[in-house]
């Protein structure tokens, strides 16, 4: 596993930008055999469709390695709204559409609420929730999203990166052929084009807290899903994980072995999920 770290120079944004944009290795595409075998193993190993959709991202796949915890029902909260509002707000700042992360988040919230009023949005959407939320909740959401947007806005030297950087785009999702109720999602926040002609690129994933022993597996899974959803492009050159609250960053240089390891992790997670579903069903 090839890992690289940023230099200790300041400003940190320049050091991270240098790490992200350093020379790429010879681009290679995802092994077609791996794609077929992975799809087949997931289709065979996943819980039946009747047990509902199975959405796996790094967090949920790695969670399967731990002892089962009580199932959580999704609900909007400052935490769950943080990235959804914070990432587009950061894009507004980078593109000079807003003067600060806080101003951008306020605009983003107003837009989300306005869209929810247009009747094109389902009930229970973020906009519908925010439209009815008391002041205190809106404040908590704004504060959380502003922190995220600030981290993203100050993370890299965007002036140096120019138009090569894409920020806050929707996460790539791979619906498994043969088992489309199973989807893999890559949570990454920034994409930087390294060589437009060869479509080489680096991905940046912001993560909370501090890196754990599973950090590189997390980044590997991001690389795998990115490769699965863009078969026409080479593998991402690297996935850079950044943990702003602990000031840590690591670059995972992506290879076929990175993807094979991530694929095994996904297959293991699907198998673990099937066993849990079976136990719950029997109980």
């Amino acid at each position, binding site marked *: 596993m090839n890992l690289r770290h940023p230099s200790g120079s*300041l*400003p940190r944004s320049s050091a991270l930008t240098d790490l992200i944009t350093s020379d790429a290795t010879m681009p290679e595409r995802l092994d077609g055999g791996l794609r077929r075998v992975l799809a087949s193993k997931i289709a065979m190993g996943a819980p039946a469709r009747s047990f509902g959709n199975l959405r796996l991202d790094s967090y949920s796949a790695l969670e399967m390695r731990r002892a089962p915890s009580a199932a959580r029902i999704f609900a909007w*909260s400052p935490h769950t709204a943080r990235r959804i509002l914070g990432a587009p707000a950061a894009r507004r700042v980078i593109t000079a559409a807003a003067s600060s992360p806080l101003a951008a988040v*306020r605009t983003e919230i107003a837009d989300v609420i306005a869209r929810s009023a247009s009747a094109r949005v389902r009930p229970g959407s973020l906009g519908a929730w925010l439209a009815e939320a008391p*002041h*205190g*909740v809106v404040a908590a959401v704004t504060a959380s999203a502003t922190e995220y947007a600030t981290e993203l806005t100050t993370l890299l030297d965007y002036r140096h990166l120019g138009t090569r950087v894409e920020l806050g785009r929707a996460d790539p999702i791979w619906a498994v052929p043969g088992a489309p109720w199973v989807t893999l999602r890559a949570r990454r926040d920034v994409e930087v084009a390294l060589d437009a002609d060869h479509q080489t690129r680096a991905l940046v994933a912001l993560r909370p807290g501090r890196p754990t022993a599973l950090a590189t597996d997390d980044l590997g899974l991001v690389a795998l899903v990115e490769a699965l959803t863009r078969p026409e492009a080479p593998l991402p050159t690297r996935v850079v994980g950044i943990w702003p609250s*602990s000031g840590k960053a690591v670059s995972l240089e992506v290879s076929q072995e990175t993807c094979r390891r991530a694929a095994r992790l996904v297959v293991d997670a699907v198998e673990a999920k099937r066993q849990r579903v079976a136990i719950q069903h029997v109980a």
Partner: protein
Amino acid sequence: MSTTTAGDILETLRGQRTNRPTTDLTLAGGLRSWLEDDLSPLTVDLSPSEPMFLSPRGIVAPQLAAVPGLQALARSALVSALLAQRVVLGEVAHPMDDALAALESDPARAELVETIHSLDADGFAHLAAEVAAHHAVLARQLGSIPPTWFPRVNSRLSTALAGGRVVLGAVASLIVGPPAGAVASVCLLDVTTSTLESTTPTRLGVLALIELLRSGAAPLRVGALSTATGEQLVLEVTDQLLVDAVGDVVAAVRARRSAA
């Protein structure tokens, strides 16, 4: 310790733009090495999978840091929510209602919210009055913050030491200023519902040290504001403050290891 109760603490914290110290690029590495050297022999039998967690409060008052009362925890959480609201929305019309709504929206606070709701009418009214009084201090001593100062509230900061065997962590009530470049630019404010004590400078020093080790650059200033008394304290982040903080961290780890 020289505190004051007058003035906008943020103006004191930020100071004049033209009067900021140059960032010392070697300071973080030097202090980290010093910490690593002193902590390694003390923590050799700890496992990185179960690190020793230390907060600024835990370092200055290990015996008191363990269990504040639920009422104190609730008051602190409610005032933190109001700080966030003042910073991002600028105004608070109904302190207790707004703060409680913020807490209710956070599943991680469910237990605390349950505690608040389980108070009898007198207990609830007493807490609401306390929260309103603390908020009045915030409103008086925390001026409006321009969004271009990049304000962040209730931010978690941490840094791992001794191969991950020790984790220094803190929640900064308020951070302003973009990440440092050539000059120091980040200021941290600790808002507390307790009074300021003789140990407050030590606590602030450790907070500054965590920020230095996390970001690679020393913050410009650190401050504390007591919403109980209105006292405020602002410290320049000097090399001496950070060196003292290194000593405090090592002493706290040694004390914990001796007690274990």
